[in-house]
C-alpha cells in the first residue's frame, strides 16, 4: 500500500478506537463541540483522497470514515460505539484488500490511452505523410489497454504502448511509462552472444561472452551463425516479444538491426548452428545465462560508440586529425533560455583557430548517438564550417491560429509553406576535409546537421547506417500512465515536402555519402582490438 492509503486506514482505525472510548464523554461536558470529533475522520479522508486520488480497493476505509459521522448525528452512546466498531473493522479490511488486489493503484490504462490518442490524433503532423489510419489503430490497440486494466498488468500496457508507437516508424514517437519499466522482460534470455547482420547479408555473432560455454563450443566474435532455435536468425528475431515494439524510420536501418533480437529468443536452452573455424557447420545447445537486454546494451554501446569526451569538446586523433564531439545539440541553459548562442560560436571559433594554427587539417565531427536538441546549435555549427555564402536550412510549416493546426491542402496533398530559414557560412575550416560520423542514434537536430552539411563539397557523411531520419519538432503529453512524445512541429524542405522524415516507402531524406560496411573486419576491430572502427575509416578517407 502507498503511504497515504496506509495513513488513511490507520487514522480511521485509531479514530474509531478513540471515539469508542470517548463515546459518552460529550454528554458529560459542557461544550457540545466535542461532537465535531466525529467529523474529523471524514474530513481527513477527503484531504487524503484529494492528495492520493480515489482507489476502489480503499472503499472500506472511505465507508468507515463516513460511518463515524453517525456519531455526530446521534448522541446515543450505544449507536456511537457501534459505529466505532464498524468503522474499525472496515478500516482493518483495507489492508488485505489492497495487498491482494493486482489492480491496486494502477492507472486507468484504457482511459489514459484514449486521452493521449485524442491529443496525438489532433496534433501529429505526419498523419497525411505517413498515411496514418487512426480509426484502425484505435480499434487494434484500445482493446489491449482494456485487457491491461482487466488483468491489472503494467507489462501488457507497456507492450501495447510500445507497439502502438512502433506503428508510426518515427523516431520521435515514443512512450515513457510512469510505472516500473518492464522492458527487460520483453527482450528474453541471454545465451552469451548477440547477432548482427553483416553487409553481405550473413549473420554474425558479436558481443560473445569470453571464456564461456559459448567460446568453448567454438563461437567467437565474427562467427557466422546459420540458424537460431531451428530458424533463420532474421526469422527468429521476429519471434522476440520485443519485435513488434520496435520500428525504424528507414528500411536500411531496419535491415542493419534485423537479426539483433534473435539471440534473446529461446527457453532454458537454445540450439544454434554456425560455421566453425574449420569451415564445417556445427550445431550446439546453449543455456541461458542471464537477461538479454544487458548484453544487447553493452554490445550496441561498442557498435555505436562515439569519442569519449564531453559534449562540444575536442579530441586529437592523430597529428593531422582532430575530432569535435557533439553528443547533443545543447550548449547551456543560459543560451537555451535567451536563444543567444553567440558565446558558443565565439568559443568554438577560437578553438577552431587554435587547432588550425597547430597544424591540424582534418576534422571529424562525431554526431554518433546524438539525440538532438536546439536548431540554433545546428545553425552555429553550419555557419562555422559551411562555405562562405547563404545556405538553406529548412522551411516552417504554415500555422493557422484559427484552425489551431498547420495548413494542409487535401486536394494537392501538400503542406503550405511558412518562413524559410537560411544561415551564412564562414568557412572557418578553410575547405579542408570534414567527416561527419553518424549512426541510427543521430536524430532530430543531428539529422538536421547531417542534412545541411551533406551537400558541402568538403564534407563526407559516414556511418554503418544513415542518421535516424526523424526531424520534426517534438512535444509530449502526460497522463497518469506516463508521457507520450510525438512529432508536432512541422518542417519542410526546399521543395515543400516533409523535411527528412520518411513516408510509407520508409526512405528518409537523410542519407550517407559513404556507407561503411559492417563486416568481419569491423567486428574484429571493434570487439577484438577495441578500436573505433568508424574513426579509423574516417581517417583513412581523409588521407586519400
Amino acid at each position, binding site marked *: 500500500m502507498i503511504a497515504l492509503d496506509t495513513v488513511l486506514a490507520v487514522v480511521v482505525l485509531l479514530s474509531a478506537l478513540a471515539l469508542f472510548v470517548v463515546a459518552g464523554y460529550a454528554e458529560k461536558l*459542557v461544550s*457540545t*463541540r466535542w*461532537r*465535531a470529533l466525529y*467529523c474529523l475522520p471524514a474530513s481527513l479522508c*477527503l*484531504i487524503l*483522497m*484529494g*492528495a*492520493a*486520488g*480515489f482507489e476502489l480497493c480503499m472503499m472500506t476505509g472511505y465507508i468507515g470514515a463516513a460511518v463515524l*459521522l453517525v456519531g*455526530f*448525528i446521534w*448522541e446515543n452512546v450505544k449507536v456511537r460505539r457501534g459505529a466505532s466498531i464498524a468503522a474499525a473493522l472496515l478500516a482493518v479490511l483495507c489492508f488485505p484488500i489492497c495487498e491482494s488486489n493486482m489492480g491496486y493503484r494502477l492507472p486507468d490504462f484504457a482511459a489514459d490511452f484514449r*486521452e493521449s490518442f485524442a*491529443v496525438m490524433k*489532433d*496534433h501529429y*503532423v505526419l498523419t497525411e505523410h505517413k498515411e496514418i489510419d487512426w480509426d484502425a489503430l484505435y480499434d487494434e490497440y484500445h482493446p489491449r489497454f482494456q485487457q491491461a486494466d482487466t488483468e491489472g498488468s503494467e507489462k501488457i500496457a507497456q507492450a501495447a504502448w510500445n507497439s502502438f508507437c512502433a506503428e508510426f516508424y518515427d523516431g520521435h514517437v515514443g512512450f515513457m511509462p510512469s510505472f516500473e519499466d518492464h522492458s527487460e522482460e520483453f527482450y528474453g534470455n541471454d545465451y552469451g552472444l548477440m547477432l548482427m547482420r553483416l553487409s553481405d547479408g550473413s549473420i554474425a555473432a558479436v558481443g560473445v561472452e569470453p571464456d564461456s560455454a559459448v567460446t568453448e563450443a567454438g563461437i567467437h566474435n565474427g562467427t557466422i551463425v546459420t540458424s537460431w532455435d531451428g530458424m533463420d536468425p532474421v526469422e527468429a528475431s521476429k519471434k522476440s516479444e520485443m519485435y513488434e515494439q520496435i520500428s525504424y524510420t528507414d528500411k536500411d536501418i531496419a535491415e542493419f538491426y534485423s537479426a539483433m533480437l534473435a539471440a534473446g529468443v529461446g527457453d532454458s536452452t537454445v540450439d544454434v548452428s554456425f560455421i566453425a573455424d574449420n569451415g564445417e557447420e556445427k550445431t550446439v545447445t546453449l543455456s541461458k545465462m542471464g537477461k538479454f537486454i544487458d548484453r544487447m546494451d553493452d554490445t550496441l554501446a561498442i557498435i555505436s560508440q562515439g569519442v569519449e569526451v564531453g559534449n562540444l569538446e575536442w579530441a586529437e586523433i592523430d597529428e593531422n586529425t582532430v575530432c569535435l564531439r557533439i553528443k547533443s545539440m545543447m550548449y547551456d541553459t543560459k543560451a537555451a533560455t535567451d536563444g543567444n548562442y553567440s558565446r558558443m560560436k565565439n568559443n568554438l571559433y577560437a578553438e577552431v583557430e587554435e587547432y588550425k594554427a597547430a597544424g591540424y587539417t582534418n576534422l571529424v565531427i562525431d554526431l554518433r548517438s546524438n539525440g538532438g536538441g536546439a*536548431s540554433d546549435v545546428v545553425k552555429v555549427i553550419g555557419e562555422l564550417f559551411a562555405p562562405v555564402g547563404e545556405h538553406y*536550412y*529548412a522551411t*516552417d*510549416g504554415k*500555422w493557422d*491560429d*484559427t484552425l*489551431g*493546426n*498547420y495548413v494542409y491542402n487535401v486536394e494537392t496533398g501538400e503542406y503550405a509553406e*511558412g*518562413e524559410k*530559414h537560411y544561415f551564412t557560412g564562414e568557412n572557418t575550416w578553410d575547405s579542408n576535409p570534414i567527416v561527419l560520423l553518424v549512426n541510427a542514434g543521430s536524430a532530430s537536430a543531428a539529422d538536421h546537421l547531417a542534412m545541411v552539411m551533406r551537400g558541402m563539397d568538403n564534407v563526407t557523411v559516414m556511418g554503418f547506417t544513415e542518421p535516424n531520419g526523424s526531424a520534426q*519538432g517534438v*512535444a509530449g503529453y502526460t497522463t497518469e500512465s506516463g508521457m507520450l512524445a510525438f512529432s*508536432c*512541429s*512541422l*518542417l519542410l524542405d526546399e521543395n515543400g515536402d516533409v523535411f527528412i522524415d520518411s513516408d510509407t516507402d520508409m526512405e528518409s531524406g537523410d542519407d550517407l555519402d559513404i556507407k561503411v560496411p559492417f563486416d568481419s573486419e569491423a567486428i574484429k576491430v571493434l570487439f577484438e582490438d577495441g578500436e573505433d572502427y568508424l574513426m579509423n575509416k574516417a581517417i583513412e578517407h581523409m588521407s586519400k
Partner: protein
Amino acid sequence: MRNIIKSQLYQLKFNRITIMVFVALIAFGIVQAFVQMDINLRNGKLLTGGDYAALNSSMQVVVAQMFIVVCAAQTCFGDFVDKTTNYELMSGHTRAQVYFGRVITTLVVTVPATLIIMLTPEIVVIAVNGWGTKLDIGGMLIRLALMVLPLTRYICEMMLIGFIMKNPYIVMGVGYVYFALGMQFYESQSLFLASTNLIALSTVNVWTTFGLDSELNYVYDTGLDYTVILGTIAISLLVGGGCVLLGYIFFKKDDQN
C-alpha cells in the same frame, strides 16, 4: 427567515473587513491584468482575453478561495461574538429559520462576490484587447458555470466549521489551513477537495508547437472529460449538502452559550 436575511445583509454593509478585502482584491485583479498585458507587450505579444483565461485562471481561483474564507466567516458568523443568534432565537425565530437564513445570505453574497473577483482581471483584458480567436468562449462559460458548484461547496464547508466553532476568526484560521493543504495538492486536480476541483476546472489544456526560429503557437482545448463534469456535480452536491445538513443537525441542539 426574511427578516434574518435582511438583518444579515444590513450588517454586511457595515462590515469593514469584508468590504476592505473585497475592494483590495478587485484592485489587485485590475493591477494584475495590466501587469500581465504589459509583460506580454514587452515580449512582442498581445495578451487577449482568451490567452488570459487559458493561462491565468488558476491564479484567480487561488485568490477567490482566500476571499471566500473571509467573506463566509464574516457574513455568517460576524455577529456570533455578540450573541445575536441568541436574541434571534429568543425573539421567536426557530432554529431552522436562524440557520437557513444565515446559510442563504452567505451563499447569496459570497458566490457572486467571488465570481466578480475572479472575473475582474479577465474583463479588464477583454475590454483592452478583446477575446481573441484561440479559446472557445462557450467552453470557458461551461467551466465557469461548473465552478459555481465547488465554490458553493467550499462555502458550505466553512459554514459547518463556523457553526461548530462559533467564532469568525477561528473559521478564517481553519479555512486558511484547509486552503494551504489544498494548494499542496493542487497538481492532483482531484475532485475530492474543493480547491483542487476548482484548479481542475480552471486549467485549460494548452498545446504548443514551434518553428525553427519563430514564436510558440498555442492551441487551447476547453473540453472536459465527462467524468470531471459528473464528478464535480455529484461530489459538490454531496459534500456541500452534507455540510449544510450536518451544520443544521449540530445547530439544532447546540447550546448557544
